[in-house]
């Protein structure tokens, strides 16, 4: 053994290949099958895509580093399910490029946040968390309400997402910018067009409380309100298993 190694130590190129070979095995065995084995991600019928406004909101969530303090992955532990809701399934982040499972809970998990609070609550909380929860250490994000949403290039965003595998239609991509208005301005023409494309169940509201302006706050709140609601399968699974007891 030692002799062989002494030989290896004399040959830099062989050493390089030895390192690459030895280091590659683990990743290949563990990662490659995740793309091919069917059981990795459940198949469900009702899984829907993020709307353009929600995509924009998700990008703000990423930009502000909310994931540094919040996870979006409820583990299969009793106390966690009781605190946050049914545990997270793989399919629920199927369209998450990148995933935002997080690694640290300075604040609570947000995987099932959607519709837990009103839009007004979120707006007040984001502007100053301590107005709502006095001992909170969450930063205030007052500028989101001041910044208009940059939405004219949303079509490019949706097109890029389609390239990595999210099933947006041509129509959705073409009208992406318009649809961000539609979703945040109820009872308008763009709103009707938006609902036609994304389904009657989609949220159409003036998320930031002001239908006249499309702000970053609109986008972020729209995203927060859809968390855990892209598919109902986790809740169904949970009620099936309690029903069976």
């Amino acid at each position, binding site marked *: 053994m030692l002799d062989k190694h002494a030989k290896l130590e*004399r040959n830099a190129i062989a050493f390089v290949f030895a390192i690459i070979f030895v280091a590659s095995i683990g990743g290949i065995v563990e990662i490659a099958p995740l793309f091919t084995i069917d059981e990795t991600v459940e198949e469900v019928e009702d899984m829907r895509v993020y709307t353009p406004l929600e995509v924009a909101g998700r990008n703000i969530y990423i930009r502000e*580093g*909310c994931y*540094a303090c919040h996870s979006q992955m409820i*583990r299969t532990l009793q106390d966690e399910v009781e605190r946050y809701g049914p545990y997270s399934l793989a399919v629920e982040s199927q369209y998450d490029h990148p995933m935002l499972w*997080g690694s640290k*809970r300075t604040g609570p998990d947000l995987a099932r946040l959607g519709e837990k609070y009103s839009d007004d609550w979120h707006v007040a909380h984001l502007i100053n968390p301590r107005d709502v929860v006095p001992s909170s*250490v969450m*930063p205030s994000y007052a500028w989101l309400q001041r910044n208009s949403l940059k939405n004219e290039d949303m079509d490019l965003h949706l097109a890029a997402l389609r390239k*990595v595998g999210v099933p947006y239609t041509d129509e959705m991509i073409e009208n992406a910018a318009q649809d961000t208005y539609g979703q945040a301005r109820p009872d308008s023409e763009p709103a009707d067009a938006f609902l036609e494309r994304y389904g009657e169940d989609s949220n159409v509201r003036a998320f930031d409380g002001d239908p006249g302006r499309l702000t970053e706050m609109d986008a972020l709140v729209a995203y927060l309100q859809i968390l855990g609601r892209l598919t109902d399968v986790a809740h169904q699974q949970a009620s099936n298993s309690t029903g069976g007891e």
Partner: protein
Amino acid sequence: MISQLTRDERSSAMILCALLTLFGLALGIVGRDDVLGWHGALLAFAGLALLFVVMRGYYDPNPDPDRITKYYDDPTKVGVIVSMMWLVFATFVGDWVAWLLVYPELTFDAGWSSFGRLRPVHTTGVIFGFGGNALIATSFHVLQRTSRARLAGNLSPWVVLIGFNLFCLMAVTGYMLGITASKEYAEPEWYADIFLVVVWVTYFALYIRTLARRQEPHIYVANWYFLAFILVVAILHIVNNLAVPVSLAHAKSYSLFSGVQDAMTQWWYGHNAVAFFLTSGFLGMLYYYLPRRAGRPIFSYRMSIISFWGITFLYMWAGSHHLHYTALPHWVQTLGMTFSIVLVVPSWASAGNALLTLNGAWEKVRDDATLRFMFVAAVFYGLSTFEGSFMAIRPVNSLSHYTDWTVGHVHAGALGWVAMITFGAFYTLVPMLWNRERMYSSRLIEAHFWLALSGTVIYVFAMWNSGIVQGLMWRAYAEDGTLAYSFIDSLNEMIPYYFARAVGGFLFFLGGVIGLYNIWMTTRMPALEDPPVYDLPPVFETEPAE
């Protein structure tokens, strides 16, 4: 700096600077409507500034024709200073974010200064800015001494060093501007990632070409580790950052993978960034500077072989311990746990090898704060690898994951191991580089040592406490079978620990400032008339043929 380059090399340098400027301009122009434009401006400006520096020295006399008989240490010198500057900057930001968790109002009403954007500035600043520069600087130094040859290039070391720092600058300014891919320790966006690949290929080529010149038939252990660091980081970086940009004019991209596959790829990367950046590279440092400072050879050659291949093989399986009880298939979690536990063996072989090398030199450890830094580093390396294996056990992880215990673990490794071994290596290296008899002040080294050690201990104990309290409160049930505490209850318990951590962090930061000052003053000391001979010179008399 410029005087060490020949006229031809100066011309090539000018071409490279001009290319950098043009690239920056192009990026700035296509990305003018996007935050990308700022990074174009940054690169263009850097290119112009460098061009100016080279032009100013262009007509200086050519370097000594016998430069091949000397080691090339200018890049190492710059790397050491820059590394310490990053340390001071990034631990300042670290302490700032630590205070933000106690006093959340301690910031400005603007995006760039909010916790979520500053936190990656801290992590990137310490890991890549401080750690990366330290690795590049020491690897150049070790490589030349153990090969008895000058670096196989006079311009390429600068390409590596300056290119790497431009990458770090793009990273930290990017987060503050709102540019991030959100993957931990891989936050920079696609164009910065590509830029780093170019730098990294240059680094590898330089390394392997210098090794090819070596006069010693065997490649020394430290170089195995540096090689593993360079190679594996390249693989990890490329795979984990695969993404589709929104357009060439957008900084934003969407990662190729999603959901569970993305999570596994990210933590395969994340865990092995710890392994090959923060462990392998620094073990390379340890294997060279510790025996030198102690004046004793490495205890066991056999143990170094076992630990090297053990670490290189096993670590790459362990990433899934970051995803216990999640939607990741169970078998992958189990593999991750198993390999993580076995990992303690090669890790302790390394730590043991270091400590046994010191066996017989304990009076030096007592008297010499520089060697004591390295001793403490080896102890913390042993402790945190044991802790890591323990935390990878699924039931333990159910408590520790998502809590401050992880942060405590990270910093036992980061402060106790990575930073301490670097300080020990720098204090050994700096007098050699500048041909001084010793550091400017040994009392300041002593002060730095105690600040760093007490800061680390306070930090780690505070986070162990807060982490375990959090974990226990989250899972506690009341008599009636409902959860006993709300999330806010657990948050309120954290205040004293977060306060203590911020104080400990401040001590550590202060130590870093003293370290930078001490190193700077050493470089300002008058040069010795006849400096001590630290190393045997390179073997070569003339430029070797390729």
